[in-house]
């Protein structure tokens, strides 16, 4: 029986009333026994999810007398969300550690060349780091909200932890906006290179060539793995943004149940995305020689590029040749 529902019900009743009125009878008498017909809590709770009524103060959310759903939210929050987050993040850490132990750092097979090639221009890198830095702070401050009291509180003590958490909350609230802007740019800049293609399946079948040395399935500017990351970031980021905004602006077009759902989605999804992003960060830094350069200087080693993005390099070289050719022919004329 939410606000909206009761509005609808009122409207329905009103319409029904209209339909029933045939004679303008100033009032109709009825036997009304208020004490005997009093509303009973048990009855109400068994038939509806929350009990609400009328209240004179303007704060209409106060008209919800009871919402036992709060208890369910608490359960989801303290068990499902907790464990999904913990397992996915710890699981990913474990997986990456294992991977590193077994596979070690993925080196450039043919060794570094003395030539580089421009992979990301300045704007692309800016967009990446804008989003990434926001994401890291959002993730850490978010994790603090979920796990801080078990991990940090005993270390820092109540006051310091609380001060930290307060800062973290402000950071989380305010960085949400640059993060969202970053998401939008990221989408606009890279969407054309991230449309899934047939080749992506081959790349996936080959395991991206990550498991063994010397074998690198061909890939364009973004391989299938990176495309997956892209869509996880865009899709997941959008959901996180929407649910996050719901929580930032409580009761703005939402009722308590919406916010509870929003928080649950936000929490669980963040855990999963953080895990995915850990893999992304790993492979983009310690996990692979030369990968970091793409987002550092934007210039990557040509050999690295040939191994991991052979089709893209061909594409770029073809373009360059064409450009050279054009230039030469212009000069010849």
């Amino acid at each position, binding site marked *: 029986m939410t606000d909206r529902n009761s*509005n609808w019900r*009122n*409207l329905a*009743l*009103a*319409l029904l*009333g*209209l339909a029933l*009125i045939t004679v*303008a*009878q*100033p*009032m*109709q*008498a*009825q*036997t*009304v*026994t*208020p*004490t*005997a017909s009093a509303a009973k809590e048990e009855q109400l709770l068994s038939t509806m999810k929350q009990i609400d009524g*009328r209240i*004179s*103060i*303007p704060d209409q959310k106060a008209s919800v007398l009871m919402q036992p759903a709060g208890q369910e939210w608490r359960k989801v929050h303290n068990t499902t969300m907790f464990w999904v987050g913990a397992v996915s993040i710890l699981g990913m850490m474990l997986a990456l550690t294992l991977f590193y132990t077994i596979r070690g750092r993925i080196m450039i097979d043919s060794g570094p060349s003395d030539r580089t090639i421009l992979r990301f221009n300045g704007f692309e890198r800016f967009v990446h780091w804008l989003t990434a830095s926001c994401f890291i702070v959002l993730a850490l401050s978010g994790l603090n909200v979920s796990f801080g009291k078990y991990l940090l509180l005993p270390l820092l003590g*109540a006051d310091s932890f609380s001060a930290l958490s*307060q800062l973290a909350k402000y950071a989380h609230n305010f960085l949400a906006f640059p993060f969202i802007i970053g998401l939008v740019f990221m989408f606009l800049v890279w969407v054309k290179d991230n449309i899934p293609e047939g080749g992506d399946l081959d790349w996936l079948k080959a395991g991206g060539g990550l498991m063994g040395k010397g074998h690198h399935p061909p890939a364009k500017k973004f391989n299938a793995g990176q495309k997956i990351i892209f869509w996880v970031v865009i899709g997941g980021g959008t959901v996180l943004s929407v649910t996050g905004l719901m929580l930032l602006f409580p009761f703005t077009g939402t009722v308590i149940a919406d916010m509870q759902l929003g928080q649950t989605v936000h929490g669980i999804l963040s855990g999963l995305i953080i895990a995915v992003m850990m893999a992304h960060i790993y492979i983009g830094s310690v996990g692979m020689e030369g990968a970091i350069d793409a987002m550092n200087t934007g210039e990557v080693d040509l050999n690295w590029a040939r191994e991991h993005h052979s089709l893209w390099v061909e594409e770029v070289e073809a373009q360059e040749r064409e450009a050279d050719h054009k230039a030469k022919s212009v000069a010849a004329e």
Partner: protein
Amino acid sequence: MLIKRKSGEATRTRLQAMANGLSSGVLDRRSFLTQSGLALGGVAAIGSIQLGAVRQAQAGPVNRAAPVEIRKNICTHCSVGCSVTAEVQNGVWIGQEPSWDSPINRGTHCAKGASVRELVHGDRRIKYPMKLVNGEWQRLSWETAISEISGKMTEIRDKSGADSVFMLGSAKMSNEGAYLFRKFGAFWGTNSIDHQARICHSTTVAGVANTWGYGAQTNSYNDIRNAKTIIIMGGNPAEAHPVSLQHVLSGKEINRANLFVIDPRFTRTAAHATEFVRIRPGTDIPIIWGMLHHIFANGWEDKDFIAKRVYGMDEVRKEVAKWTPEEVERVTGVPGEQLKRVAQTFATQKPSTLIWCMGATQKTVGTANVRAYCTLLLATGNVGSQGTGANIFRGHCNVQGATDMGLDVTNLPLYYGLVEGAWKHWSRVWEVEYDYLQSRFDEVPAKGGRPARTRKQNMETSGIPSTRWFDAATLPSEDVDQRDNVKAMFIMGHGGNTVTRMPEMSKGIERLELLVVCDPHPTTFAIHGERKNGTYLLPICTQFETSGSRTASNRSIQWGEKVVEPIFESKDDFEVIYRFAQKLGFADKMFKNIKVENNHPVPEDILREINRGGWSTGYTGQSPERLKTHMANQKDFDLVTLRAKDGPAKGDYYGLPWPCWGTPEVKHPGTHILYNTNLNVRDGGGAFRPRFGVEYQGKTLLAEGSYSLGSELTDGYPEFTFGIFKRLGWDADLTESELATINKIGGNNVDAVSWAIDLSGGIQRVCLKHGVSPFGNGKARAIAWNLPDPVPVHREPIYSPRPDLVAKYPTRPDGRELRMPNRGGSVQKAAVDTGVAKKFPIVLTSGRLVEYEGGGEETRSNKWLAELQQDMFVEINTNDAAERGIREGQWVWVKGPESDSKAKVKALVTDRVGRGVAFMPFHFGGWFQGVDQRAKYPKGTDPIVLGEAVNGVTTYGYDPVTGMQETKVTLCQIEAA
């Protein structure tokens, strides 16, 4: 994890904890108020909370080193009379604790009572005297204000006569204040001195007094605990008198009592009824006669009671016979079977009590309604014993007392009337020449075809009721039955938005040469109409800033002690009245027997003067000392009987409910239940009062075979005079000094000296000795031949939603009452002829909200209360709203059938009101006809919440007996705004 040092077993008292001292520095009240951040207005404060703010406690930290005193006063908001226990430190009211010992509220409060502390911290109070000069408010000194106002009053008096100054007192005054103001009116020379009782229970007082003697609740709130059947008809005590519901619901639970609520509206009270009966507004008499129809038809009436104690019931039977169940249903909408069930229960499952409020009284048939109610009680024998009675819940905290004190246009204090004997009685009490008083009144020239009046005749002529003051200012002088129109209003504690027909009132207020508003807050009077000059605002303190007694609805009188000194420059009623009397030149005479200290009359001394003159109503035994003893020993009084079981007041009823016969030394315990023959008069017993002679049309008006317990006279008897004493030989019981006083009063007609004017109290003392009631032992009158409708007859409201019924049940024809014309008959006829009911198809009724009181300025300025009701609204039925496309919470126009009146309010779509009925609360003001008038208030004194007054759209209609206005039933139309 945090560690909480303590748990609930701590037993230190707050006093000790505070005495232990946790901070230093002494705060005076002013700096406390500054520190408390009260400069932030409530509304403004909402937006001013900072990012990451902690809730701001606005008072505190309290200096805990200073001692805390406990002071007891009475809540100033309704007639229940809840004690308020205040904690005071350094002259600042810092806290409020439950008053556990009070047998009336037993610690509890309603929203208003729990937030009264805010009244004396109120930053929206009037802080200093002000006057309106060319539309701007200017500050004045008290001295200048009093002298300017007095000068103007004298000028108007010289030009237009004393009656041209209309005086409006207050039901929120103490008894002493109300008495003093009535006395002020007498010394000024006018009977046009009124107060809120006019618009609340004037019809009750008239109806009840005309039936059995006194105009008051017969039993008490506490006594309702004894009832087996309770009918609440035309009242919503859950909102208007919340603490009374404690007693009602306890009775309902303990006795498994039947609780019927008969009302047009499914109120918060109705929600707790065992059965709710919805009626069409304005059909109370058909309901009562319909019930009596079943009662008489089935022989459920109390034949013995009727035979012994009721006069004229046969006349009632004739009228009742017309009200067959079919006719009742046609008129009221209530089916016969349901009414039969209610009637049978009420008549047979006794004791039964009938509770009513404004629903009965605020109608053109108000007095008749009340008389019909009384008749039902009489027919079923439900008066004068435990658990029965007319439990009339009065409105303001001292509306009973102010009525008793004669703030009424037809009375001197204590119901002595305006006849020569009454004036002479009071001139004896006041020790002032009767001729002097007479000289103060106007001579009225012959006009409008009416004969002239001498000063004496004018002195004995009722004044203009508060409902008509603006008509008295605007109608042609010929229509106003006094020397000239009303030219000035002197208002002490009365709202302006509580009287109907505000568009007409605008014209009246603009015609006034002088408007004086003495109040803690600027009432609607201060801002209504287009006045530019001649309005004065004088800051009066609340009853918490002074002391005095107040009479609760059950006639218990409670002494309230001053909690804090008057804040800002405000003064109490006593001082202001005294200073005006001084300036007007009659203070010496008026305060001859009242001690005045430092321009401040001593309230205890005023009460002693009341005691010396209040014989007729038994206001004589309640000395300030006895009342204070009661307040100090509240714990000794029984919850149900209200009698002290122990202690210094042992045997007394709480608050010495009047009549408390004889002098204080006689130690009469007061009268808990009026007309109760089951007790000796010495223990608060009594009988019906024969006020209208000993016989009428050959039939006795004295009781037959009924008398109070232990009475030496075992049959009916008339009121006692010295002459009757002599015949009974009881004159021998009088002491010498008593005899001397009686002889002095009687002069050459000593035999005529009665119990009511014997200033020695000897007659009453001897009456008690013989166990008889001083006022006699008569029959209650089912037929009141001195009233317009001796047996109540149904009359449709002026604006009836059923024009088809008007022909059969028309209102009374035009006439003149209380110096004014009453055009009700022609207004009703015109309404029918022009088809008003078609254009305005919704019945409009009005009533109280729990958060606010009266005109509402005080409570709407209280931030704790204002937060709870921020918008004026109209309750509109779900179906009516759907037909008009009106949604919950949207703005709508409520349009009235007179003067193109309209009010912009929010819609509250609810089934509380039936189809075709709308309800608006009457506490709002400050908007008029859709326009916000906040800017017109003096800076910083505007109430937090403003809104349209319901009386912006209410209409013509006056009870022929009392001039009561018709607020409970009129017509309107509602449209989306």
